[in-house]
Every structure is written in C-alpha cells, then in structure tokens.
C-alpha cells in the first residue's frame, strides 16, 4: 500500500504530514467511538420547518482523524454542534436522528447529562480563536477553569498544569502567555490556547470546527501538525470540519463530504482523493488548483462546478446535486438516492461506480 501511494505521485498524498497511512487506525464499525446516523437539524420558522441538516451519517473510530468537508451552508458546523448537544438552547432548532458516543445516545440525554460530557470526554475548538475566548480574562485563567473542571486541583497545581498544557501545544514563554489577554496574542497562539484548554480533560474526542480557516496558511500547517501529534500522543480521536480539501488531504484518515445538508460521500482519504465516487466530490477535486498539473506545457483549466448550492428549504425534488451534475440521469431528478455502503465507503448517488 505504501509503495502504491508513492508511485502514483499524487501531489495531495505528498502533502501528508505523518507516516500514517489511511485505515491504520484500524477501526471497524462496531468499535466506533462516535457513531452518527441520520442526523437532522431543522429550523422552525414562521412558515413551517426548514431542514438545515437533512441526513448525516458517519463514524469516528478510536484514535482516528475524520474530516467533514463541505462548502458554507452545507450544514457541517451545525452537525458537529448537534453531536455535542450544543443546539439545545436555541428554541428554534430541532435535532433528530441518532448520535452514539461511547455507547451512549447523546440526543436522548437530558441537557444536564450532555453538559457533563462536554469539557470532559468531548471537547471542541472553534473557528475564530480570538473571539472564542473571554476578552476580559487572562487566557491562563480560562485554561485553569477547564483544568479545575476536569481535575478539581487547587490553585497552584492548576497553574502548573496549565503551564504543562501550554508546553504540550507548543506555546513559548508560558508565563507571559498565561497572563496575557486574548487580544494580546496572535490568532495562531489563541488557537493553541484553545487546544490546550480542550486537552485539559484528556478528552477522547476533540471536535474542531474550522480551526484554521481564520489563520494564515503557514500557521495552519503548524496547527494541523500539532493536531496530528496530539492524536498520537493522547490517543484521541479528532473530528475536524473544514471547507478546505487540502486540510483533509493533509491529516484525515476518513473524509466525509457534505452537500446541501446531507452526507454525499464517506471514505478513506486516499480513496476519496484518487477514486471519488460522488460527482460532487469529483467536482471539488477538479476545482482545486494543484502544482505540477501543467504536464507537457499544457496548463490544466480549473474545472469549476457550474450552478450554485441550493438554499435549505428550497431543495429540488430528487437528488440535491442533480441540477449541477455531469452524470445526471432521469432517476436523479425524482428520487433522492439513499446512502449506500460498500466496505469502508458510502455514497449517495444513483450513478456511483461500484468497484470491488
């Protein structure tokens, strides 16, 4: 397998940060840490109900990195917030489907039980790191808050644990950073602080909602490297949401592609990148600029996907991607394809290739 990947010279694969190959996490579906089936999130509006997330299905195994990839409006952020039970406070949103974490059904829990999981076994990191920290409290104190929630340590011990965590995430000059306020730190440092905060309770699942979207590319690479390293050191699973395929290509074991509130395709990263089964995935790959694509002096054109993403509540009959699809047939316009599993990969497409 290693030899195969190297010989295809796939530039996306060349970007992979660790020696880890897809599937080495060795998870089977029954051993999944997090199991999401048919997740739905609808909004109650004056005119009825609008489905923002229609049917999301994927697994996260122990020690696995799963990336959810989708455009804005695909419902990816809402999906992961729903798995943490964070949508409860918004009275306009309804959640349905099943989310099983470590054998326990999250959506059926009372809010108090959900809360007890958060900041302990499940932790989350957000998109705008500086805005996600309390602006009037020194960051060290905020991390200490998580530490004390997890371990109930007295002051001085909590502080040294904070220092330890900061070191773990690669923050220099620990004392100065701990006393600083969020606006005194750079975006990348704030994100490391958030990661340190999330690690305080040694979570089994770390959810990262577009953790690098607001940061520079160089910082992004460093943070992804950090996440990878942490996955190994802490035996932690990571569920990472991103709109950037490059991020998924860099660290994911499994990729979940979302379109218009639904899972379009799930599969191991190499399979997704080399043999995508859903036309949307193929379109996404085609529209990513890559180095070395101008073979023989002929520059390859970026293939944009024509059309626009449909708005929630204004979905066409049948498959949501049909209006923009190259492989559309009669059936696609009237019937919405179900998610079909084939080994480790799944796809919602009538015309998806079935290979062995």
């Amino acid at each position: 397998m290693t030899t195969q990947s190297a010989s295809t010279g796939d530039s996306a694969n060349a970007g992979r940060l660790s020696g880890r190959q897809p599937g080495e996490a060795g998870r089977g579906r029954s051993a999944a840490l997090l199991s999401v089936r048919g997740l739905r999130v609808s909004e109650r509006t004056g005119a009825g109900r609008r489905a923002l997330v229609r049917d999301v299905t994927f697994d996260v195994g122990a020690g696995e990195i799963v990336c959810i990839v989708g455009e804005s409006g695909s419902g990816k952020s809402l999906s992961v917030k729903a798995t943490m039970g964070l949508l409860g406070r918004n009275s306009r949103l309804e959640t349905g489907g099943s989310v099983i974490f470590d054998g326990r059904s999250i959506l059926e829990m009372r809010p108090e039980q959900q809360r007890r999981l958060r900041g302990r076994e499940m932790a989350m990191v957000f998109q705008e790191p500086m805005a996600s920290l309390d602006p009037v409290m020194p960051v060290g104190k905020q991390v200490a808050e998580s530490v004390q929630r997890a371990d109930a340590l007295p002051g001085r011990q909590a502080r040294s644990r904070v220092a330890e965590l900061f070191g773990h995430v690669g923050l220099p000059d620990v004392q100065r950073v701990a006393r600083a306020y969020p606006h005194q730190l750079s975006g990348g440092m704030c994100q490391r602080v958030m990661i340190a905060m999330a690690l305080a309770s040694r979570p089994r699942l770390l959810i990262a909602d577009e953790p690098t979207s607001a940061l520079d590319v160089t910082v992004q690479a460093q943070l992804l490297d950090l996440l990878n390293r942490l996955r190994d050191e802490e035996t932690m699973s990571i569920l990472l949401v991103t709109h950037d395929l490059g991020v998924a290509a860099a660290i994911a074991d499994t990729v979940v592609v979302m379109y218009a509130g639904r899972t379009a395709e799930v599969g191991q990263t190499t399979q997704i990148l080399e043999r995508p089964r859903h036309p949307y995935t193929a379109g996404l790959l085609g529209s990513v600029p890559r180095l070395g694509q101008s073979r023989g002096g002929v520059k390859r054109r970026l293939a944009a996907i024509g059309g626009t993403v449909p708005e929630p509540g204004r979905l066409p009959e049948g498959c949501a991607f049909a209006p923009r699809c190259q492989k559309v047939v009669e059936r696609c316009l009237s019937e919405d394809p179900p998610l079909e599993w084939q080994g480790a990969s799944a796809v919602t497409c009538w015309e998806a290739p079935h290979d062995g």
Partner: protein
Amino acid sequence: MLEYVLRRLLIGVPLVVGVSIVVFFILHLLPGDPVAAALAGSPATPSVIHRLEAEYGLNRPIWVQYWEFAVHALHGDLGRSYITGQQVTSVIGAQLGATVQLTVAALALTAVIGLCAGVLAAMYKGGPVDHLLRLVSVWGSAMPQFWTGIMLIIVFSFSLHWFPAAGTGGLRYLVLPAVSLALVSVGIVIKIIRNSTLETLSQPYIIALEAKGLSRGAIIVRHVLRNALIPAVTVLGVQVGSLLSGAVIVETVFGRQGIGSLLVQSIEQKDYPLVQGLILFIAAAYVIVNLVVDISYAYVDPRMRVAVDTDGR
C-alpha cells in the same frame, strides 16, 4: 498609564475654564440688573449706585471682569452673595452635604436596580420580566421628575403616611426624594445594560464556554457579567450629571436643603454671584466625575488598558 491619566487631566482643565467662561459671559452679557437687586428697594442715589457698581466691578470692561473673577476663583473666592453678603464658597459648602447625601443615595439605587434589572431583562428576553422592565424604562424616563416627586408625596406621605413630605434629615427624609430622583436614571441604565448583556450573550465565546461544559450559572457569573457590565461605569458616570441636575428639581419639590434648592432660590432672588458660583460648581463637579470615569474605564476593560500601556494615549 500615568501618561494617560495626565493627558485626561489636561483635557479637563480647559473644559473647566471653558465652563467658567460660558457661565460668566452668559450671566453678564444678558439683561438683569444686579444693582437693583442689591438695593432691593432702598433709595438709590447716583452715588450709591456708582459705589455699588465699583464694588462689584461692574464699570470695567467685561474681559477684565472675567479675568478678576478667574483669578479670584483659583484662590477659592467665588465672590459674595448680593443678598446676604456671605462668601459664595461658604454658602455652597454649608448646603453641599445634603445634596451629596441625596445624590449618593439615588446613585446607589440606580446602580443596584438598574444593573440587576438590565441583566435580568436580557437573560429572560421576551419574557414577562423583560416586558415589565421595558415599561418601567420607557415610562420612567418620560415622567417629569417634579411630577414623580409630587405623586410619591401624595401616595406615600399623605395617603399612607410612610414617609415625610418635606424636610431634610435622616433616612426617612431621604427615601422619597432619592426614589424620584433615581427613576429617570434607572430607566436609562436598564436599557443600556440590557443591550450590553444581549450583545455579550451573542458573542462567539459564549458558545465556546458552553462547549467547555460550564453550567449556565457559571457562565453568567464568571464571564457574562464581567463583560456586560463594562459600560456600567460610563453610564453611571453620565447619570451622576443627570442626578445633580435633577437634584435642583427634587430638592425644591421636597423642600430639602441643598445646592439644588439653593440654586432655584438664588435665581429667584437674582443673586448672580451665587447663581454663577453654583452652576460653575455643579458643571465642574460633572467634569471631574467624567474624568474619574474615563480613567477608571481603563481599569475596567483590559483591552483599553493595553492600548493605554502601549501608546500611552
């Protein structure tokens, strides 16, 4: 930080000077005859008039008069009352205590009720508490202060006999005036704090705190309050001005001693040095309060503090 404080002080000084100029010139350039007031009916021969004019410096160019006034003011001499001949500063000093008492009481009421109610209204947005407080805010700030004072007297003094209707003294004399003084300010504080709390609650870090697994109570107490109440310092500082000016009315309605009722009295009696001194005093006090508020704001909001430290501005 020190540089910031000094800068603020430096801005305050020209403001106070400007205030003194405005007060002096408005009173002196506009009609109204102080000499007639001083004479108050006694026979006015030209020589007497001349003497009085000379004594009050009224026969010299206006700028010179102002200069003399300013120099004297810096030495703590604000002139003498036309009516009693006493030093303006001592008259003010004698009456100041009652007003301070009243203003502090009203400010305490405003702060406690206004801040709590504002936060509660935001937390239970759309609920009955919110609507009730909105009513209080809207109507409270519309009711003229002299009217609320009178209404309170009618209900609580003459009907229920809980509190005295007039006079200065201990706690019992303070309740009704403080309440009627505070009503307008409470309405404004509730509105501003409610908005600030709502904005805080919609910030991204709130959901991050929920993701940390903190309980609602912990989030409110440890994080929301600290952020939402940042404008409180500024708002309360501005309200001090409102309260000082409202004291003029409330002290009159309740027959209380204080520089407010003193001001009304001195206007009626056309005792211009006293009017001048009082208005100057109140405005200068307001400037000082705002200065203190500005400086303490840097302590309250760490984001300001850093800006101050980095470029001393």
